[in-house]
Structure formats: C-alpha cells, structure tokens
C-alpha cells in the first residue's frame, strides 16, 4: 500500500511539475496563432525529454554521480566548460523568466503591479531552497501544479468543434491563421525548446543524488517519467487547445499571461480562474526552484565543490552562494522592467539552440561501461537517442536563421 502511494505521489508530482512558464506561454501562443497544427511538436518534445530524463536518472542511480560531474571527467574540461557556459546562461535566463512568471501570476490574482511581487517572489524562492527539505519542495509544488488540469477540463466545457480541431491536428491550417511557413517552423523550434528544457535533466539527475537513489529506485523513476511526463505534456496540449478554441477565432494572438487565462474564464467562470491561478503560481514557483537549484548544481558539479540540499548550507557554501547570486541577477533584470513573457519567448528558443550541447554528453555517459557497469543503454534507447540527436541538431542550427527571418515570430 505504501509502495502504491509512493508511486502515485511520484507520478502526480511529475505531471504537476512538468509545466513551467515556457510551456504556459508558448503553448498558448501557438494555439492562438496556429491552432493545433503544432501539437505534434509537443508530442515529439515529450518523447525526447522522457528519453533523456530516463537516461540521466539511470546514470545517477547506478553510478551515484550526477550528470554534470561525469561530463567534465568523461569529455574533458573544454567540452565540459562549453556545456557549462551554455547551460548556466540559459538556466539564468529561464530562472529570470520563471520568477517573472510568479510575479505575473500573483498580479493576476491580486491586481497589484508585478514590480511589487518580483522581490517577494525572489525572496520566497530563496527561502524555500534555504530551509525546505528537497522532497517536500518537490512534492508540494508538483501536487499543487496539478491544478492546471483545469485547462483540460476547460477544453470539454467549451464544447469545441471536434471535427475542426481534428483537421488542425492533421496539419490543415485553420482559416483564421495567416502565418508564414518561416514563422511556423520558428514556433515549432520554440515549442520544442519549451518541452525539452535542458535544466530538467540536470535537475532530475541531481535530484536522484539528493534523494539517495539506488538501482532499486529505477523502477519508480521509470514510471514517474513514462507516465508522468506524457500526462504533463497533455496539460501543455490542453493549454494550446483552449487558446485555439477561444482566442484563435477572435484573432487574439497571445502576448501576455493574462490572455492565457481568458479561455478558462469563458469555460468555467471565476472558480476555474482561481484554480488556474493556483496552477500558474505552483508551476512557476516549482520551476523557479528547479532552475535555481540547477544553476547551483551545474556550477558546483563542474568545479568539484560540495553541493546538495542534503548538506548543511555552511558545508556547501559555494553552492548556496551561486544560487543567491543567480537569484539576485534575475531579480535585477526583472526590476529593470523587462517583460517576463518576452524573456520566456527568448529563453525557450535559446534552450533549443543549446540542446545539442546539453544532451549529447548524457547520451555518451549513459553508454559508458566505467560508470554504468552493465546497465548501459540498450539498442532501442541508443537508436532513439541518435534520432533525437539529429532532430536536436537540426532545431539548434535552424533556430537563429529562423529567428532573424521571422523577426522572432512577430
């Protein structure tokens, strides 16, 4: 019984924790401008992240080392540094976007200006990282994030034209959408980057060490990933569908977080809005915690510092200092008045650009007998891994030209 509860908790946390500000914004933007013609990208992205999260979780459980620790050892200081630089900078950008997302969600709930909420959000994130136990932090934000299921419910409450939605899924563009092919592929890459967030994988493997996983826990992790992430992906898809059903016919292209909420209001009224806002805050707060921790993990693991919430903070001083500085930088950027939604839109595209640097090492390490013993990747995993590597490379190379050609999707 306890095992079943533990399993359920893991899965539910994975579902609720899947969506972050990148998914919220990008899915809604895509639904409002392209209908459901880009949903296939979410599916591909979910398969990809399942694959790589599984690999990095297995590496951590079997070898007892987190992915970033191994990257420098196995691939050398230079490649490791390139990986670190790319991951760290993008992490910082994503962190800023998430903290901004918390502030925007609180603004929607209270009506008060985000500039008031930004310091509150940053301090709250730091306090939770400082004092709250890792598993509690994960489980609470994950479970509260399940409130976003209201988007899935909203889809049905809106009584959509299922035939029209079906034809959009089959890649026939809806009549109100007049976007060019260049913009279509630019947003495909953005959506892909929002699903395959690089920080997720580092967080996942470091989290395995934080919770002292052994090979016995691999079964649980596999279920969490293979059941939880796809269902989380369904939440992203629901957000896109609500936007496609309500906003697209009225030609409202989403540019702010408030517009993401409108379809839910139309479907279920004030109660649905309150639940959705709870989901927004939980998702962005959870993701802010994860990105902050990831920035600490990546730097500490590369340089060999002691790290982890399982240590006394004074015993992992540089790790905690990194996170404090990261939050301060995010706070500073947001206080200049930068629009968190725009930061989000850029962060997902840059995530997509950095994907090859962040994912290739995982594929290599998961095949290394020295760390994995005989639990290296099977042939199917390697085949899928290579297929995704090709997809990731294409997306990464095409991202900047498409960004320039489409003027960042405007």
């Amino acid at each position, binding site marked *: 019984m306890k095992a079943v509860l533990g399993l359920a908790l893991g899965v539910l946390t994975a579902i609720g924790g899947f969506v972050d500000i990148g998914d919220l914004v990008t899915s809604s933007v895509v639904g409002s401008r392209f209908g459901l013609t880009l949903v296939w990208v979410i599916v591909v992205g979910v398969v990809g992240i399942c694959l790589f999260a599984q690999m990095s979780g297995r590496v951590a459980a079997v*070898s007892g*080392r987190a992915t970033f*620790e191994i990257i*420098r*050892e196995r691939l*050398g*200081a*230079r490649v*490791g*540094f390139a990986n670190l630089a790319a991951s760290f900078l993008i992490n910082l950008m994503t962190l800023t976007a998430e903290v901004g997302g918390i502030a925007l969600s609180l603004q929607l709930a209270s009506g008060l200006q985000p500039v008031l909420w930004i310091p509150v959000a940053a301090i709250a994130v730091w306090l939770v990282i*400082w*004092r709250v*136990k890792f598993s509690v932090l994960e489980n609470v934000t994950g479970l509260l994030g399940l409130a976003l299921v209201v988007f899935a419910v909203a889809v049905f409450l809106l009584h959509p034209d299922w035939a029209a939605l079906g034809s959009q899924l089959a890649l026939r563009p809806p009549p109100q959408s007049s976007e060019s092919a260049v913009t279509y592929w630019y947003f495909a890459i953005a959506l892909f980057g929002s699903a395959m967030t690089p920080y997720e994988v580092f967080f996942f493997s470091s989290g395995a060490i934080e919770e002292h996983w052994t090979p016995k826990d691999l079964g649980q992790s596999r279920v969490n990933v293979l059941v939880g992430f796809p269902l989380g992906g369904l939440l992203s898809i629901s957000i896109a569908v609500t936007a496609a059903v309500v906003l697209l016919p009225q030609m409202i292209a989403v540019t702010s977080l408030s517009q993401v909420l409108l379809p839910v209001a139309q479907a279920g009224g004030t109660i649905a809005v309150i639940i959705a806002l709870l989901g927004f805050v939980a998702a962005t707060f959870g993701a802010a915690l994860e990105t902050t921790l990831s920035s600490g993990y990546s730097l500490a693991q*590369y*340089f*060999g*510092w*002691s*790290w982890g*919430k*399982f*240590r*006394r*903070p*004074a*015993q992992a*001083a*540089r790790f*905690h*200092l990194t996170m404090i500085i990261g939050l301060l930088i995010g706070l500073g950027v947001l206080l200049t008045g930068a629009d968190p939604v725009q930061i989000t839109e850029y962060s997902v595209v840059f995530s997509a650009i950095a994907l090859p640097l962040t994912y290739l090492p995982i594929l290599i390490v998961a095949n290394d007998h*020295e*760390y994995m013993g005989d639990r290296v990747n099977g042939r199917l995993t390697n085949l899928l891994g290579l297929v995704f590597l090709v997809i990731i490379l294409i997306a990464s190379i095409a991202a900047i030209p498409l960004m320039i050609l489409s003027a960042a999707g405007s």
Partner: protein
Amino acid sequence: MTAPLPRPPRVPGRILDARLHLLDRQVLDVDGEPVTTVDDLELGDLQFGERPRSAAPTITALISGPILTTRLFGGRAPRGRLGRIGWEVVAGIDIVLTLGIPGGGLEVSWFEGWLGEHVIGRIPGGRHDPD
C-alpha cells in the same frame, strides 16, 4: 603481413593514463566529501612550467585552481594562486580520487571554508542540520 606488436613488460602496480584517469577527476576526502576537481598535476624534479627532459617524471601533487582559463585559452598561471594536494595523501584511485585526510585543512579548501564561516554560516539557518 605485418609483425604483431610487442607486448608491454608486466610491471607491479597499476598503469594509469594521467589524462584519462587523473585529470578532471573529482577528489573526495576521507569522509566522502567533495574537495575539488583535479585541474593539473605537479611532476617531481621538474619546476612548474618546464617541459620534461628524459627519464619519466613522478607525480608529486595534484593541482587545483584557476588553471582552467589557461587550459582553455593558453598561457601560464602564476604558481602562487594554485592549490596543491600532495600526492602522499591520495588514498584511492577509482572513478573518483579519494584522499586519506579530511578536506578541511587543505590549501584548496580555504575559500569554501572561509565562505562557510563568514558568509553562509552567518545567514540564519546556515549551520542547521538539513532535516
């Protein structure tokens, strides 16, 4: 038909590749706490920065410090800024290097220790046991 390669002489001990097995490896102290990563090696009877001459040099220390920038971009770091872990304290070589002494007193740990004492430790809750 080419002649087969001569087999290397069997010697006592382990044969290690310095680059593969020592460089960039994590160093843990006797309690399993991380100390640093190995950035460079100090070779005996060679001054730091000299090129090896004839006989095989011996490793006298692990070096850690801001040597990363010079490894990436070239040049040479000033000797004073590098931390040194004498080879004599290395207890085990595996996928990580283990020392036989606690990491607290080492040269390379001074910054972590200073930060822990004076910055992080001063913030309320900094010395609390993680629950």
